């Protein structure tokens, strides 16, 4: 599903954010990526989203070579992945329903399909009742759930979450992780970047540890 071969990313010459990273993530896997600030986690995410191009090496996602991907192809590629951010990134001037519908509008989904899919996604994250609320009327946990609904409404093959629990209290963090796990159970490949050791240790999933741009460990099912 995701395959990196000898990927190096330098922002300025000689200083590598990622240095010769190779890894493989299979379809349906749930993977944590951990590491300190500056370890290259965010760079890895941005490479996977094709926001950046590697300085060298190759990246293949869903059978597509991201290095050779043209600017025109990027939107179609991103429609097959859902993204969740630490700061939720909801549109403040639109209500919950419109925020989720937005992901379908940009892909020019017909309105009749949208009317089915948005309530379904909101039910999955437990926010069906709050579809009329605006982001500022919701708690942090609820906002992140809206973001997850937006990420899964397109039924993506891959879900990438960049510090999804970074701004949340433990109870809400667990709610969010539960939703990501449910998505994984439905067949979506999930990649979560996190600092939260408690979650990583408790969930017993594959953990890839980055340090200064290198993979220092890749452990399947921590704690088993």
């Amino acid at each position, binding site marked *: 599903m995701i395959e990196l071969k000898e990927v190096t990313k330098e922002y300025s010459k000689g200083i590598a954010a990622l240095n010769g990273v190779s890894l493989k993530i299979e379809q349906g896997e749930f993977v944590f990526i951990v590491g300190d600030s500056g370890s290259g986690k965010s760079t890895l995410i941005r490479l996977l989203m094709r926001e950046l191009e590697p300085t060298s090496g190759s990246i293949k996602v869903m059978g597509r070579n991201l290095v050779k991907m043209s600017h025109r192809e990027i*939107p*179609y590629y*991103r429609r097959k992945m859902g993204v969740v951010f630490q700061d939720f990134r909801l549109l403040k001037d639109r209500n919950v329903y419109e925020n989720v519908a937005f992901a379908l509008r940009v892909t020019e989904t017909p309105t009749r399909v949208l009317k089915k899919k948005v309530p379904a996604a909101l039910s999955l994250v437990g926010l069906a009742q709050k579809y009329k609320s605006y982001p500022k009327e919701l708690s942090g946990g609820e906002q992140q759930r809206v973001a997850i609904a937006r990420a899964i409404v397109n039924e993506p093959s891959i879900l990438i979450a960049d510090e999804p629990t970074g701004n949340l209290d433990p109870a809400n963090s667990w709610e969010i992780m539960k939703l990501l796990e449910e998505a994984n159970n439905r067949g979506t490949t999930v990649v979560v970047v996190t600092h939260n050791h408690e979650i990583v240790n408790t969930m017993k999933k594959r953990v890839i540890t980055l340090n200064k741009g290198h993979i220092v460990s890749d452990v399947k099912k921590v704690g088993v």
Partner: protein
Amino acid sequence: MRISTIRYTVKQGLKNIAHNKMFSIASIATMAACIFLFGVFYSLMVNVTYIVEKAEEGVAIVIFFDKEATDDEVANIKTQLEKREDVLEVKYVDADAAWEEFSKDYFGENSDAQEGFSENPLVNSDNYEVYMRSIESQAEVVEFAEGLPGVRKVNKSDIVADALSNVNILLAYVSGAIILILLIVAIFLISNTVTMGITVRREEIAIMKYIGAKDSFVRAPFVLEGVLIGLIGASIPLVVLYFAYGKTVSYILTKFSILNNILDFLPTAEVYKTLLPVGLLLGVGIGFLGSFFTIKKHLRA
């Protein structure tokens, strides 16, 4: 494009304008000023051109025939000249008519003086007066006429021809330069307004791109905003000018009635036949280009 997408684009485009109210108003005002000035210059130019053209029509070259020229040759000169696109009219003036006109102009009431001439002194002065569509083609027509069989001499008025074509050229250059400057200013302003809109909605654009929006989808509301600003900005001055033009013309004609014989203005409808579509197209075009290239630049970044 789906209907729902069009509806979304229109809604967002209007929202952009409402969000940046002050900038939108400033852009519309500048666009209005540009199109207004364009309209004024255009009206001025077409009228001066019209007046110059009228004056040009009165400037003719005169072709005299060889003594031995046959009737066929004389007729052929007329046919050949009339075939040319730049020739408006070829008028035959026979010697007797020429003498009559000359003596009427010259002797006036003193017909006694005229009696001193027993026969027409202008015999062999049969000629063609050739009127051209545009004074610029005079030199070419003269050369052509001189090459025709049966032509003895061609008289032309270089000074008038040169002066008139110089006025035409100068006017075209000046209006062209002014209009060009105005267009650049307008494009710059629209671009600024759209940049403001993009800055305000930077986060939204980033989110759109993360979830797979095509550039065209992100671009559409901003381009629509530019086009609407252009359209509104062009419509206001065109309406104002429509009424102002008629009033100005009638004011000039009543205030300076002495000029009535010289000045002949084009009617409003005649001016607007071109000014209306060109003005609207300019407004929409500037709005489109200004916003299209600005958002394109920002999307690439």
